[in-house]
């Protein structure tokens, strides 16, 4: 233990504690901005400076460890003044259109200003002017970036993708992909973890709210909503409820109030995924047991960020992915085929909106492979945050809503579908069904040992011995099925390396692109509750446990959709609607021309090779909403004005030059 004094108070904390943490554990709060517990410790903003007796300068308390006999002052005149100056300097290069910013009132920078009592902005200097970078999933507004570098930390250290890094130097520093390439043109997987940690409005999901309102307001459109499992345990947080609060019924009610014609549950399609994916796994295993060629391990394919990652990093191993579309794409395909016939509405008129905890889903719906009969399976994806914004905009008092139910036939789901939203859930759901199909008995839940593997971060593994199977699967007697589960790109990378060098011992691998799974996806509410992941996880497990039906193959509507429409898992029609294929991309996109910068769809590669960043002005002809159109008209008027003034100035300068010359000539003549 180390003894020190903070503001005269004698305290004692463990060795290696920072001043900030020591103060916090003793109820002294030091204002800070860039610091994130256990995630980001960089000392870039310096807001948390304190006075340390004997030190020449103020110390960043998030970076300075306590020492024996240290005397710290967190609240002196000098410290308060320094913090204010630092704050004013940060906002001197920050676009201050707070009132119309998406992060208004949820902005950490804004809150900090209030905490510090800043009432002036004295520094009006140069401003970095950069165009918005709009990809199909994520929008970067660099006029708001304060270079705190939290996003760099999650992108490099947590996810290990390394898309964002500081480019250039000094005032010109910009946080972004290499050589200022747009996000949609590089190997970003759109996991959106950066949008969660961004303290300001610099990184956010690309807006789909306007598009959805337009569809709802269009009388000719039949607008259908579907919701992912993880949304129902997080949406409440946006309305002040505790993380993990289950708001399934309120969410359905809110969606109905917003004007959606049908509210379906992506969970239904999660059950369907289990049927399709389980069957696919059994086929591959059967082939392997019989000595026929089989690509194992099979990897789950529900996480579009993960899919994009493997397409970039392991283009030669795509055959390991299950061919199943992700659940919401499956449901979209069914709504526009099966359900369209039931309600007798043309598929062209149906507009499917998926409410997802995910930013990568926005990319997924723009994929060419996610179309049937020329129609996209899903037309728009709203993140959990965006849905909350719509609910607020519509004036719905969310917490007071009476619970309502999803619509059938695509709204009923089993408990197996609920746990799709958390790491290990898809695996467990699949095993519940596959084990029962093969052995005729229920999976022994209690004996399912999921143990972390030594030496591999974030990877868990389990083994299931199959004995005494039913007659149809006699060949599996005594077979041990090895499975592995991971979440976050970093963990997935380790498993992929094994596959690449042929040493993977597994049959089935579940990968979710975000650490912890969809419950902490890139589209979920930003939370400052340190236990948020655990609370949402418990919420989903509770949702599962509270259901009578907990195995996908027990869902009666699943059985009837196979009877009426799909015939059997893996049938021709289900392959057409519910399965897909993947694109080889390569780390630098060298294997494809597809890019995902926003232009209503996709942009072909237009990457000039030897251009430095300075003259690179990525064009983003974004889709325009009415509001934007008005703005762009205003801009045009202003531009014309500028042009006019410039011309006038040039004229004046020319005149001055002429006069100068005349004067020079005259004086020469006089000489």
């Amino acid at each position, binding site marked *: 233990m180390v003894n020190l004094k903070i503001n005269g108070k004698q305290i004692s904390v463990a060795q290696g504690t920072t001043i900030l943490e020591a103060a916090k554990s003793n109820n002294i709060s030091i204002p800070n901005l860039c610091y994130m517990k256990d995630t980001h410790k960089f000392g870039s903003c310096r807001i948390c400076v304190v006075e340390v007796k004997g030190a020449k300068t103020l110390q960043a308390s998030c970076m300075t460890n306590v020492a024996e006999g240290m005397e710290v002052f967190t609240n002196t005149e000098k410290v308060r003044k320094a913090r204010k100056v630092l704050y004013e300097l940060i906002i001197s290069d920050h676009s201050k259109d707070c009132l119309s910013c998406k992060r208004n009132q949820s902005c950490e920078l804004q809150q900090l200003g209030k905490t510090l009592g800043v009432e002036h902005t004295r520094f009006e200097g140069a401003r970095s002017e950069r165009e918005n970078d709009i990809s199909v999933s994520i929008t970067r507004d660099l006029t708001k970036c304060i270079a705190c570098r939290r996003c760099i930390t999650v992108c*490099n250290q947590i996810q290990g*993708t*390394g*898309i*964002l*890094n*500081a*480019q*250039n*130097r000094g005032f010109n520093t910009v946080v*972004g*992909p*290499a*050589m200022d390439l747009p996000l949609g043109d*590089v190997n970003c997987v759109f996991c959106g973890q950066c949008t969660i940690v961004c303290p300001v409005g610099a990184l956010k999901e690309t807006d789909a709210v306007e598009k959805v309102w337009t569809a709802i307001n269009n009388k000719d459109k039949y607008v259908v909503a579907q919701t992912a499992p993880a949304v129902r345990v997080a949406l409440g947080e946006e309305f002040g409820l505790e993380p993990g609060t289950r708001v399934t019924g309120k969410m359905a009610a809110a969606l109905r109030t917003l004007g959606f014609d049908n509210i379906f549950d992506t969970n239904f399609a999660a059950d369907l995924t289990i049927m399709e994916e389980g069957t696919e796994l059994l086929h591959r295993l059967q082939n392997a047991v019989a000595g026929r060629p089989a690509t194992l391990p099979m990897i789950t394919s529900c996480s579009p960020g993960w899919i994009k990652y493997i397409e970039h990093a392991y283009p030669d191993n795509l055959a390991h992915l299950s061919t199943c579309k992700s659940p919401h794409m499956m449901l979209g395909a069914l709504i526009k085929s099966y359900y369209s016939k039931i309600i007798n509405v043309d598929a062209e008129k149906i507009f499917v909106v998926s409410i997802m905890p995910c930013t990568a889903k926005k990319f997924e719906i723009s994929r060419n492979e996610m179309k049937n009969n020329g129609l996209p399976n899903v037309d728009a994806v709203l993140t959990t945050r965006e849905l909350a914004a719509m609910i607020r905009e519509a004036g719905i008092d969310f917490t007071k809503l009476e619970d309502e139910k999803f619509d059938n036939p695509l709204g009923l789901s089993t408990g197996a579908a609920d746990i799709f939203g958390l790491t290990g859930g898809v695996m467990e759901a699949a095993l519940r069904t596959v084990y029962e199909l093969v052995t005729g008995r229920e999976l022994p839940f209690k004996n399912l040992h999921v143990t972390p593997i030594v030496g591999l971060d974030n990877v868990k593994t389990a083994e299931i011995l199959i004995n005494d199977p039913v007659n149809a699967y006699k060949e599996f007697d005594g077979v041990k099925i090895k499975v592995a589960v991971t979440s976050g790109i970093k963990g997935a990378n380790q498993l992929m390396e094994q596959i690449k060098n042929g040493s993977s011992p597994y049959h089935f691998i579940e990968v979710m692109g975000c650490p912890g799974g969809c419950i902490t996806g890139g589209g979920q509410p930003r939370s400052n509750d340190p236990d948020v992941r655990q609370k949402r996880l418990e919420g989903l497990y509770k949702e599962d446990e509270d259901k009578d039906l907990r195995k996908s193959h027990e869902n009666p509507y699943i059985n009837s959709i196979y009877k009426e429409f799909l015939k059997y898992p893996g049938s021709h029609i289900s392959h057409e609607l519910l399965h897909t294929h993947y694109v080889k991309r390569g*780390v*630098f996109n*060298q294997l494809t021309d597809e890019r995902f910068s926003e232009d209503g769809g996709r942009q072909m590669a237009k*990457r000039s*090779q*030897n*251009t*430095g*960043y*300075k003259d690179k002005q990525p064009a983003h002809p974004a889709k325009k909403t009415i509001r934007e159109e008005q703005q762009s008209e205003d801009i045009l008027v202003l531009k014309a004005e500028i042009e006019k003034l410039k011309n006038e100035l040039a004229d004046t300068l020319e005149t001055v030059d002429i006069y100068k010359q005349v004067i020079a000539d005259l004086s020469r003549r006089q000489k």
Partner: protein
Amino acid sequence: MNTEALKCDCCASDETQKLEQIANVIDLYKNKNGSLIQILHLAQQIYGHLPLKLQEYIANSLGIPLSEVSGVVTFYSFFTTKPRGKHTIRVCLGTACYVRGGKKLVERLEELLNIQIGDTTEDGRFTFEIARCIGACGLAPAIMIDDVVYKQVNVNKLESILSKY
């Protein structure tokens, strides 16, 4: 990535040779932590500049993100991502040269060369940069072309100076 991908037809053999040299450099430093700057330094010496394709090659060989490589390349002003001209013109914009009219020299040179600061002329003759004090304040405003310092330059002298190169 294959080094083949970087080749252009016009100077294929020369190009291949350079890339082989760079591959050797990378091999040499590959297992040493923190040797990225050294690799980039040598790669620029060999190749002349560090275009995106070459950065991709280096990132791939070292197994680090491209954004990290480009972060270092764009941080240090010594690294350049564009081909450099045969001669480098540096106009001093230190305090003394600035007040004695260095800025005018920059404007005139931009006109004469038809490029902006940091760029290279189309014919590849000149790269145009600014310098912050070259230690010749008594001779202000001064410019440097390669290793030669020109003292008390004014806009009218520029054309004749450039014609020497």
